[in-house]
């Protein structure tokens, strides 16, 4: 019952996203929709690492950068088509996740956050300076239009269907992780590491695994980005953007997959909606986020829970707060 209901909401969201390109006429808005999807995938990855497992990773963009450069290089230098470049990017991103995760996660806590910042900076410098491979400061250009078989995706509209397909897959994967034994173990590690260990859960293994899975989401997002822009610029993969992904997770609702999706869309489009404020728009944007974090610590999605529990309380006795519903 619970799953039927949540899948219903996903279905409604999907229909809305399918109808949207029919009414959008501006290529720029289509571009933003593609970007929003890329950010949703990144935020879903961070949600596995931070939202479910409780590790603060401030290098989301480094992993998407690895994905973007890997797929870009595979496409430009080896002439691989999109699907193969995607697989390559995901594998390489996961390898980097493993490489960074194995030593840093043992340290844990706030140190992990600092280590990820350092890793992000190192990766940015590598992207910028390893000219023979990454194209250096000029970036990596010459990526051909993404094509699936005979289908060449030349416009933002056609590309959007590729993005949307990958979004559906990644939302499905994120949901599978959450409801699986693995997801429960992640949630347990976040809830109480001591208790999780005391039950015989290998917390180190699960944390590294969460980190590697999060990196895979980065690989997918990076590949989508590289083929959307058909150019990879080292200036894209900054700490500021990683912080933005974190804000998406927090504003949407840490740990909640629908919340994270809403957060990523909201924070991609909010700056556009605020553009009429001219010079003040960034200040308003910051203020808005501040208000959400202050008054809705559970994120925008918690608003829904509040409304629902009030509604339920009005109809029935204000009994137990069953967030999970009947099994």
């Amino acid at each position, binding site marked *: 019952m619970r799953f039927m209901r949540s899948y219903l909401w996903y279905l409604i969201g999907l229909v809305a996203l399918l109808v949207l390109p029919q009414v959008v006429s501006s290529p720029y808005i289509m571009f933003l929709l593609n970007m929003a999807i890329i950010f949703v995938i990144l935020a879903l990855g961070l949600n596995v690492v931070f939202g*479910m497992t409780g590790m603060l990773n401030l290098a989301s963009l480094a992993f998407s950068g690895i994905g973007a450069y890997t797929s870009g290089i595979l496409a430009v230098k080896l002439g691989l088509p999109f699907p193969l470049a995607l697989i390559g990017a995901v594998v390489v991103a996961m390898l980097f996740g493993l490489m960074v995760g194995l030593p840093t996660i043992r340290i844990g806590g706030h140190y992990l956050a600092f280590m990820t910042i350092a890793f992000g900076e190192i990766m940015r410098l590598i992207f910028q300076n390893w000219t023979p491979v990454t194209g250096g400061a000029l970036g990596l250009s010459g990526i051909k239009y993404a094509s699936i078989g005979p289908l060449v995706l030349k416009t933002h509209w056609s590309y959007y269907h590729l993005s949307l397909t990958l979004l559906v897959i990644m939302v499905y994967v994120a949901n599978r992780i959450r409801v699986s*034994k693995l997801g*429960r*173990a992640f*949630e*347990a590690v*976040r*809830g*109480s590491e*001591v*208790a*999780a*260990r*005391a*039950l*015989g*859960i*290998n917390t180190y293994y699960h944390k590294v695994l969460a980190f590697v899975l999060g990196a895979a989401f980065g690989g997918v997002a990076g590949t989508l980005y590289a083929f959307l822009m058909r150019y990879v610029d080292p200036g894209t993969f900054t700490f500021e953007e990683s912080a933005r992904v974190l804000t998406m997770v927090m504003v949407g609702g840490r*740990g909640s997959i629908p919340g994270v999706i809403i957060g990523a869309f909201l924070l991609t489009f909010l700056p556009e909606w605020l553009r009429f404020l001219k010079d003040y728009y960034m200040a308003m944007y910051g203020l808005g986020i501040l208000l959400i974090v202050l008054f809705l610590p559970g994120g925008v999605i918690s608003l829904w829970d509040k409304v629902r529990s009030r509604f339920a309380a009005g109809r029935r006795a204000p009994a*137990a*707060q*069953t*967030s*999970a*519903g*009947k*099994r």
Partner: protein
Amino acid sequence: MLLSVNGVSLAYGAAQALFDVSLKVEEGEVVTLLGANGAGKSSILKTVVGMYHPFAGTIEFNGQRIEALPTDRIVPMGLALVPEDRGVFPGLTVFENLQMGTVSWRRRGMKIDADLDKVFALFPRLKERQNQLAWSLSGGEQQMLATARGIMSRPKLLMLDEPSIGLAPLLVSQVFKTISEIQKTGTSILLVEQNARMALNVATRAYVLETGKIALEGSPKELLQNEKVKNAYLGA
């Protein structure tokens, strides 16, 4: 002999926490470990379950040496620790929390219904609340959940770290009643407590720990009459 700790010494960096500690738990016993804050009670439990490794001494569980093993190898042997802060997983439902208790033994396709019936018989409250997220439980219910989750791991020895802490008096006696009931199901218990009087009432044997050393050992009767114990722990 279910558990025997022999001459264990433990240090956190340069600070030594346990000095030559020896204790044992026989099958079917409820052994309680008394002592002031910082005496090293929790350190002993965490060392037994492999979260810390002693620099001297041995630990045997069910005839096997375990002092060098990691926690995830020890727990499947039948040892469970219910930690001091209860450590329920707030983002999981009561049911999911209980499921987490089974990770040490459960393989694909194995049923847990009998285990659930057992803990729900001990804690009917949890059955009512099984679909509720754990953070929404009261302190007493969280203690029930943490204990139940420990039982779900099918332990031969259940170690409880201050199960009565922070609970209202009525709930405290409930906790100790449950401990006796768990003992009746054939599970041995190693109980760390500050509430000495209650602990000695349910225990079959007791140890008193002072600054990392075992200071006293005996039957609850002996300790209840011991002048030192009376003054220091019973407030008489």
